[in-house]
């Protein structure tokens, strides 16, 4: 209740308007639809007591930094530089809204223009927007965008091919975004060794788009994807979902033929934060620019010829184009993208490379050590991986993880939750913070768990 500056002087204001009571302000609400009883909620609290409640409740959560953690599955247990939250939560950024008035929003506009540049450089494509909600909605809207651009001349109109090795949650988002507008989704199969079936991929030639991920949902880096452009031809959009950090060491998809690149921006800028707010990156070639979703900042000048920034190509957007808009997106994730820009800038090119090397190194070392545990095998042996790898166990992944959890280790993700057929497999996720001690505890626990079953 301490948020109301006019509390206690309502009457003066009402009197000035010739009104007697607050109820006069609501006289236009018909009796028929009035609430009669007060809201059945607890009483107001002070800041102090709310904080105490928050601390009590949130202490009941186990934070990832309190134990060795190998749970990733699309989100990163990263380290965010201290500068980032401190600067991004400056009130001028935090409490602003979409920069409809560029003259008093140059700060955020320039920061987003710089963000667009850094994303564009990261993925090697000329255009980037100022963020989508997350990697999944970015992927879904990349698909609808590609269909808008390609369908008219496609041999397989309204048809899109999607890799079967993407997280099922993302597939569900894609289905929700495509089902109503007549887009047909075909699945692209993989061979037994975890790589995209390039022979089957020929089927996709002439369709509107192909969506693949590098690395895929099992952490596998697939060299075959570099040939996809040649296989599907020039008229089919190639959409690639990426692990943004991996691009410090892995070739950017823009350099091997991608038309649209999407991904989770979260490793840059913000912790896993229980799944949100995070942000999706979206970049494309100029062919998709006028039909792409989301806000875009462009450079211009003011009346005195000084460089100035402003939102541009707004005629694609819902507030102008309404039901013919390229997307319904309005609020996006700008503040988190700002955090991402700060983190990227602080890393610089060499810092990005090092961050990727740390993750690659941790993944490789963890994999080598885990394989020394008797009874463990790789789901896809001899593959190149980044951040994650999948192992098969002699017991169910669920049981193994529960036992490891009792021993104080978050051992990974139960792949049985995503694919019934993979119930004896877990996905082990590494990151720049994985330590030798973490790896030792993970392998010790795995050994114990497997030995227990053998007994």
């Amino acid at each position, binding site marked *: 209740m301490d948020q109301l500056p*006019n509390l206690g002087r309502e009457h003066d204001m009402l009197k000035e308007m010739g009104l007697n009571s*607050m109820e006069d302000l609501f006289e*236009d609400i018909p009796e028929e639809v009035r609430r009669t009883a007060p809201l059945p909620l607890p009483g107001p609290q002070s800041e102090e007591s709310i904080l105490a409640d928050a601390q009590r409740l949130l202490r009941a959560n186990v934070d990832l930094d309190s134990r060795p953690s190998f749970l990733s599955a699309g989100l990163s247990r990263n380290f965010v530089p201290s500068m980032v939250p401190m600067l991004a939560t400056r009130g001028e950024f935090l409490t602003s*809204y979409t920069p409809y*008035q560029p003259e008093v929003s140059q700060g955020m506009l320039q920061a987003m223009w710089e963000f667009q540049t850094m994303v564009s450089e990261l993925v090697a494509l000329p255009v980037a927007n100022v963020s989508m909600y997350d990697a999944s909605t970015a992927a879904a809207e990349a698909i609808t965008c590609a269909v808008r651009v390609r369908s008219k001349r496609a041999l397989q109109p309204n048809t899109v091919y999607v890799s079967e090795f993407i997280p099922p949650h993302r597939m569900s988002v894609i289905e929700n975004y495509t089902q109503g*507008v007549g887009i047909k989704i075909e699945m692209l199969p993989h061979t037994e060794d975890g790589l995209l079936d390039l022979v089957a991929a020929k089927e996709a030639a002439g369709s509107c788009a192909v969506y693949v991920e590098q690395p895929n949902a099992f952490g596998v880096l697939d060299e075959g994807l570099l040939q996809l452009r040649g296989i599907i031809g020039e008229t089919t959009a190639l959409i690639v979902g990426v692990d943004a950090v991996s691009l410090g060491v892995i070739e950017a998809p823009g350099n091997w033929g991608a038309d649209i690149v999407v991904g989770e921006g979260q490793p840059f800028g913000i912790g896993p934060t229980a799944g949100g707010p995070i942000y999706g990156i979206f970049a494309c070639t100029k062919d998709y620019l006028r039909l792409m979703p989301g806000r875009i900042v462009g450079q211009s000048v003011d009346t005195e010829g000084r460089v100035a920034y402003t939102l541009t190509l707004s005629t694609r957007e819902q507030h102008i184009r309404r039901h013919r808009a390229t997307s*319904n997106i309005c609020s996006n994730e700008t503040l988190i993208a700002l955090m991402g820009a700060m983190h990227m800038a602080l890393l610089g090119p060499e810092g990005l490379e090092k961050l990727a090397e740390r993750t690659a190194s941790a993944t490789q070392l963890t994999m080598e050590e885990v394989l020394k545990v008797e009874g463990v095998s790789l789901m896809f042996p001899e593959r190149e991986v980044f951040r994650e790898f999948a192992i098969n166990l002699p017991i169910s992944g669920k049981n193994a993880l529960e036992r490891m959890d009792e021993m104080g280790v978050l051992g990974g993700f139960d792949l049985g939750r995503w694919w019934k057929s993979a119930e004896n497999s877990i996905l082990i996720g590494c990151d720049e913070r994985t330590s030798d001690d973490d790896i030792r505890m993970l392998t010790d626990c795995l050994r114990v768990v497997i030995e227990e079953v053998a007994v």
Partner: protein
Amino acid sequence: MSTIFDFNGAPSAGWSQPDPLTDDPLSGIGQTLRRASLPRWPRASEPELVRHYTLLSQKNFGIDTGFYPLGSCTMKHNPRLNERIVQLPGIDRIHPLQPEHQVQGLLAIYFEMQEMLSICAGMDAVTLQPVAGAQGEFTAIRCIQEYHRANGQGHRDKVIVPDSAHGTNPASASMCGYEIIEIPSGEDGRIDLEALRSAVGDDTAAMMITNPSTLGVFETDIAEAARIVHEAGGQMYYDGANFNAILGKTDPGIMGFDAVHYNLHKTFSQPHGGGGPGSGPIGVKEHLSEFLPSPLASRRAITEDDPSGVGDGYWYFWEEPKSTIGKVQQWNGNAGAVVRAWAFYRRYGKELERMSEHAVLNANYLRHRITQGMAGEAENATFEQGAPANVVKHEFTLNMTPMKEKNGVTAKDVAKRLLDFGYMAPTLYFPQIVPECLMFEPTETESKEVLDKFADDFLTILSEDPEILKSAPHTTPVKRVDEVLAARQLILKYSYE
């Protein structure tokens, strides 16, 4: 003008990190996949970047720097307690796929928020997954679509929206594959029941409407509108963008709605962050609840076999709705926004009604001060009311056509001149049914003094030399920006040449 790309120090100048765990970190990755050249990101040190971003922030207007009467966006104060809470490791360092016993606190907050939002809107079930208002609209229309299909009504392919609706309404329904039927508003800016009656039929899937309308007036015929749509077999969808006006006074359930979205970033004060993040939970009546996205937070009495909970006697868990549409965001929504909104709601509790009262008080007071200031000068009037209502709700509109006819000054010119006085401009040219529209929403967190001063300044501006307005703003970091040039030259990133 300098940009971040002007920082180009030595490769070693950047931020320090620990070394990789192994001497040959890329031993597992073959040359074929390796990146040939690194992205041309800036090479900057922390001191340089802190100054860069601080200087940028000083060229940005926020609620913290001045009055922000941006209609429809509910730019209220953002309590700093909420920012403090989301930095706690129990939220920032949590993974959405952690086992339930490791996130009992988060689940308890989710459950409490689902319950609270259900109560406030008169709904039966709530999901917190949609991450923005527009995504909430999309999600609710998806649920309605599945409901119709499950009931053999899949042929219903039209969604009705008033011409005063937010642009996201038709855009969201369109993304679900619906054809949009736009109906004109009546003389008073309210819904035209006759137009609605002739628009509904066996093909009506839903009507999407916000109440109070985007003109800031309460739709007095809403119950009858709901009856008309229901009798035709359609569903009623409440766009919660304007919920700040009526909380505790009425609710969408009583009005006859079947589904609603909430903008946590508006009504419950999640900071808008230059364009997001938002959060757009939806509430639905019982018959739609089985279609909600998965998962929802649920609870049961705790037993001796359970690990320790949060101490309230319950065990919390995730539950999948029976006929769920699946996911609209990959995880469980913007948890950070949910926790902020939780902290905000706890400040008011059952007194949330006071919040709406003060939002409406401030809007009517400002409207009164502005229109009073023009009283007695009918022939010299520079604006008209956007809607002729006695009282408005949380926002109101002005039609600046008289001003434009008199001296060529547009609503946009007035908006730009307000920037010189240290205010954010009101929403411009929306709703589109009001010509030369300015839309004001002061919110409940502005004092009487601020509203008085704003009204005086606004009236001063209207009597200024028109040339000053047409060339405004004059005192901002840059003067009027050429938006046409921006769209023509399309310089969307830094040029390294």
